[in-house]
C-alpha cells in the first residue's frame, strides 16, 4: 500500500501530548490546519456595503408614487451589508468546516456517496441547458426534451420497466408517486384498498409516504438471516393490502432472495409490489427489479447516477412502472413525434393520470448530469459500476470482520452493517466510534440505522473508492476497536480535531433558536 508521506494511523489521546511540529495523522490523512471562526452574515452590523453590480433602471418609475403606500416596505431590516470579497471569504471559510466526498471517504450507508463528476457540472451549466425556460415554446427547447426522452428510455431499460416518469423531485416524492399510482390502479379496479406492507428494515420515508397516501402501515419482521420470508408475507397478505414496499437489496445490504416468490404471493391477492430503488447501485447491469416481480420503483438519481447531494439536495426520483400502471403516470410525459419532441401536459391526453406532482417538468438539472454519466459509462461501465460497488463493500466487510460484530452473516451486496456489540463491553458506543472516525479524517457511516440492528454502523463505500482508501478506512476502524479496549475514554472524548465537538442536540430541541434575530444569544 503506497504511503509516500510515511504517516501511520496513530491518534494522540490528548492534544497536549503532541507538538505542533509533529502532529499525528489519522488513517484518513486528518491532521491540523488553520480553521477560521466566522460570524453569521447578520452579525456584521450596518456598513452600507453591497456586493452586486446592477444597471440603472432607466425611465422614471417610482413605486412609491405609483403603488399604495400600504403595500410597500422601506427595505428588509436585518439584511447584511457586505462587499463581494467579504461574501467570498465568509462562504469559503464555512466550506472548510465541511467534509464532502471531494474531501475524503464518505461511507454513509444507503446514501451512495460516490464521486460527482466535474464534467457533469460543466455540462449542466451549458447556457442551452441552464437558461432554457420551462414554458419556452417546444421549438426553442428541443434539446432539453430530447435529453429527457433519452434519459427516460435509458432508465426504463436499466431497471426493466416499460415507462418511467422523470417528474418526482426526490426519492421520497418518488415513493409518494408510486403509492399514488398504486392507489389509482386499485381505484380503477373498484377499490383503493387499505394497507401497505413494509418490512422492519425499510427507510422511514416508506411508512411516511404510505401514511401521506392514506394507507395504514403493517410492519413485517425480517428473518434471522436479515431477509423477508414468503411465509411472513403470506400471513399478512389479504385483499385489503394495496402493496408491499421492498428495498432490494435491503438496508442491511442483503438481497431479498425470495423476491420472486413474495411478488407471486402479493400478486395472487391482487396486490402490487413497490421497489424502493435507493439501493439500485448494487444491481446496475446485473439484475433488473422489473424482471423480479416489481411493478413500480423509484430511482434516486442523486445516489445511483452521481448527481451532487449538496448538503441535503436537490435529489431527483424518477419512477419506473410496468405497463399496467403507465396510464396513471403523472404529467408531463415527453413524446417523440417524427423527429420532434413534445411535452404532454394536458390531462385530456392522459385521462387516468394522477396529475402533477411538482411544478413544471422535474429536476431537469439533475437529468443532464445523470444522462452524462450514463453516456460516459455505456452498458459495460454501468454494469461495472454495480459490480465494483459490491466488490468494495465485500472487501471492507472482510477487512473489518473480527474487529466489529457482524449481526447478519448473510451475503452483502453494496453495503454492510456492523454493530457496537464488541465495543459496548468497554462502554464505547457506535456514536463514539463515529466521532473517533472524524478524528481520523473520515466521514462516519450511517449510524443507528437500520433499526433492526442495535447500534448499527451501516457502511456503503461505493465503486469510486480505491482499494487503498478502503484499507485506510479499515485501519482507522481497527485502531478505534483496539483503542476501545485499551483506552475507552479516548474514544469517548472524540472528536478532538474538528473545531466543534459533540454539539448539544437536546438543548437545540428544547430551546429552539432557528434563525438569527437582533441580540441572539446561544448559551
Amino acid at each position, binding site marked *: 500500500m503506497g504511503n509516500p508521506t510515511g504517516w501511520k494511523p496513530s491518534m494522540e489521546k490528548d492534544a497536549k501530548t503532541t507538538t505542533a511540529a509533529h502532529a499525528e495523522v489519522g488513517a484518513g490523512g486528518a491532521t491540523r490546519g488553520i480553521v477560521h471562526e466566522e460570524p453569521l452574515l447578520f452579525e456584521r452590523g450596518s456598513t452600507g456595503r453591497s456586493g452586486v453590480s446592477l*444597471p440603472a433602471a*432607466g425611465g422614471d418609475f417610482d413605486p412609491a408614487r405609483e403603488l399604495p403606500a400600504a403595500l410597500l*416596505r422601506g427595505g428588509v431590516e436585518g439584511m447584511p451589508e457586505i462587499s463581494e470579497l467579504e461574501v467570498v471569504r465568509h462562504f469559503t471559510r464555512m466550506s472548510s468546516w465541511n467534509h464532502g466526498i471531494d474531501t475524503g471517504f464518505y461511507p454513509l450507508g444507503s446514501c451512495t456517496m460516490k464521486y460527482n463528476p466535474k464534467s457533469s457540472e460543466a455540462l449542466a451549466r451549458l447556457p442551452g441547458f441552464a437558461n432554457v425556460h420551462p414554458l419556452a415554446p417546444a421549438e426553442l427547447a428541443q434539446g432539453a426534451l430530447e435529453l429527457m426522452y433519452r434519459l427516460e428510455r435509458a432508465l426504463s431499460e436499466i431497471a426493466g420497466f416499460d415507462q418511467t416518469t422523470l417528474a418526482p423531485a426526490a*426519492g421520497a416524492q418518488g415513493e409518494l408517486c408510486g403509492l399514488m399510482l398504486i392507489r389509482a390502479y386499485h381505484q380503477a379496479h373498484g377499490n383503493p384498498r387499505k394497507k401497505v406492507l413494509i418490512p422492519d428494515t425499510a427507510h422511514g420515508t416508506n411508512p411516511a409516504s404510505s401514511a401521506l397516501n392514506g394507507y395504514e402501515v403493517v410492519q413485517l419482521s425480517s428473518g434471522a438471516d436479515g431477509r423477508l420470508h414468503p411465509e411472513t408475507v403470506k400471513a399478512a397478505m389479504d385483499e385489503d393490502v394495496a402493496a408491499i414496499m421492498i428495498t432490494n437489496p435491503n438496508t442491511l445490504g442483503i*438481497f431479498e432472495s425470495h423476491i420472486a416468490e413474495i411478488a407471486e404471493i402479493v400478486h395472487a391477492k391482487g396486490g402490487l409490489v413497490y421497489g424502493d430503488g435507493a439501493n439500485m447501485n448494487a444491481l446496475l447491469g446485473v439484475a433488473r427489479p422489473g424482471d423480479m416481480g416489481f411493478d413500480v420503483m423509484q430511482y434516486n438519481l442523486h445516489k445511483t447516477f452521481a448527481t451532487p447531494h449538496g448538503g441535503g439536495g436537490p435529489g431527483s426520483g424518477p419512477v419506473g412502472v410496468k405497463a399496467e400502471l403507465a396510464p396513471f403516470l403523472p404529467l408531463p410525459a415527453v413524446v417523440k413525434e417524427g423527429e420532434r419532441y413534445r411535452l404532454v401536459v394536458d390531462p385530456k391526453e392522459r385521462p387516468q393520470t394522477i396529475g402533477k406532482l411538482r411544478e*413544471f417538468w422535474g429536476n431537469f438539472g439533475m437529468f443532464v448530469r445523470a444522462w452524462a454519466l450514463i453516456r460516459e459509462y455505456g452498458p459495460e461501465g454501468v454494469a461495472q459500476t454495480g459490480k465494483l460497488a459490491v466488490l468494495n463493500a465485500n472487501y471492507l466487510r472482510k477487512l473489518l470482520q473480527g474487529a466489529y460484530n457482524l449481526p447478519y452473516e448473510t451475503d452483502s451486496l453494496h453495503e454492510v452493517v456492523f454493530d457496537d456489540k464488541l465495543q459496548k463491553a468497554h462502554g464505547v458506543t457506535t456514536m463514539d466510534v463515529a466521532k473517533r472516525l472524524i478524528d481520523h479524517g473520515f466521514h462516519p457511516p450511517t449510524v443507528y440505522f437500520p433499526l433492526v440492528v442495535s447500534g448499527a454502523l451501516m457502511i456503503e463505500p461505493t465503486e469510486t473508492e480505491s482499494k487503498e482508501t478502503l484499507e485506510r478506512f479499515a485501519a482507522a476502524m481497527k485502531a478505534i476497536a483496539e483503542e476501545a479496549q485499551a483506552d475507552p475514554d479516548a474514544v469517548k472524548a472524540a472528536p478532538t480535531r474538528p473545531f*466543534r465537538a459533540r454539539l448539544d442536540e437536546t438543548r437545540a430541541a428544547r430551546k429552539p433558536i432557528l434563525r438569527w434575530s437582533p441580540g441572539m444569544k446561544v448559551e
Partner: protein
Amino acid sequence: MRYHPHTPEDVRAMLDAIGAESLDALFRSIPQRLRLSRPLDLPPAADEITLFSELRALSARNDTAHPPFVGAGCYAHHVPPVVDQLLLRGEFFTAYTPYQPEISQGTLQALFEWQTFVCLLTGMDVSNASMYDGATATAEAALMATRVTGRSKIVVSAAVHPEYRKVLATYLRSTGDEIATVPFGADGRTDLAALEKAVDGETAAVIVGYPSFLGVVDALPEAAAIAKRAGALTISVTAEAVALGLLQAPGALGADVAVGTFQSFGNPVSFGGPAPGFFALREQYLRQMPGRVCGATVDKHGRRGFVLTLSTREQHIRREKATSNICTNSGLCALAATIHLSLLGKKGLAELARLNYARGRMLKDALGRAGIAPVFSAPAFNEMAFDVGDAEAVVARLAKRGIAAGAPLGRWYPELPKAKGALLCVATELHTPELIELFAQSVKG
C-alpha cells in the same frame, strides 16, 4: 473508466481476500433466473470529448440567445459568477444532509442563514431548511393547516399558480380534503365577496398568491382578515421572491404561513428545476412544520454551533406519524440563494426589486405605445398579462425569432373573457430597455 479506480490486479487481490472466484460470484445471493443475461441496451460508452460535443449539440437545440419574456413561476435573473464559484466548492457541493454536525458546520451555518433570510423577507418567525419547490411547499402548507385546525377544506384563489393548484389537488386526493377555488375579479385580484362566501367553519386555510400568478399584488390583508374571522390559516404563495424586496412582507399583512420559491435568487431557470422551495410560518405552528430545520446550540466546550433539530417531527424518527415524508430537500439551491442574497444585502435587494418593478413598467409602457393594453388593472410587480389579440399566435410567431414571448393564460383559464388574447409577460433586470422596445414592436407584428 476514470471514475473506477480498480486495476485488474486490485480486483484480483480483493476477490482473493474475500474468497470469491469472480465478480459474478459476489452476486450468488441473486437467483440465476433473476439476473440479467444480456448487456443493457444503452448507447456505447463516450469519451469526454465525444460526450461534450454530443451534449453541446443537444444544448444548442435549446434557443436561449434572448432572456425569456415568460416567467409564470420561473424567473430568469442575473446570477453573479460569485454564486456558482462558491457553490462549486466541493466541501459544500459533495456533502450530504448534515447528520454529523462536527464536520458539517459549513452546511449547517449556511442553512441557518438561509432560514434567517427566508424569515426576514417573508416577515415570519421560523423557516425550514428548504422544500422541493413552491408547488409542493404549498401542498405541504395546506396539509399542515388541516392538522393544525382539524378541518378539511382548503380555499384557494384561482390566481394562485395553476401548477401549484394542480399539485395541491394531487396531494389532497388521497387525504379526502376538499378544495374550493375562488375566482378573481376583473382587476385580477381575488374576488373577496366570493372568498367571504367560500370560507366557513370547516375551512383550514385560505391560499393567496403574493404576487399572484397573474403578476398582481393580490389582496392578501383582506383575504387574511376573512380567514382569521373563520379561524382558518392564511397561506401566502410567492414565486417571484424579488418582489419581497419592495412589497410589504406577507407576515406583516396577516399571513400565518408563507411558501413559494427563492429560485429568483442565485438559481438558473434550468427548464424549471431544481429550485429552492421555502416554507416559513409563525412560531406557534412550529411542531407541525414539515421538513428539516437547523438550530443553534453549543458544543461540549460551550462554543456556538449548529445542528439539525426538532427531528421528532420527521420520517426517520416518526415514520408513518411524521409531519411529512420529505427527506432530501433542495439544500444546494438554498445555498445558491443564500449566497446571492448575501451579495445583494439590504441595499442591493432594494435596488434589484426597484429595477424589476421599473422594467415591468417599461414593458407596460412600450406595449402601450404599440397599442397593447394590460388585461388587469390591479398593481403589479414585474409581470403582467397583456391583451395581444391571439396569444398563442404571438407565441408561435416570436418563437420563430428565438424569443420565448410569454405564457398564454388561455392554457389555464379557458373560461376567462379575454382568455384568447391574454399573454403573461415578465421583464427583469436582464431585459434591457432596447430589448423591451424590440419585443413590443415584435408583439405588435
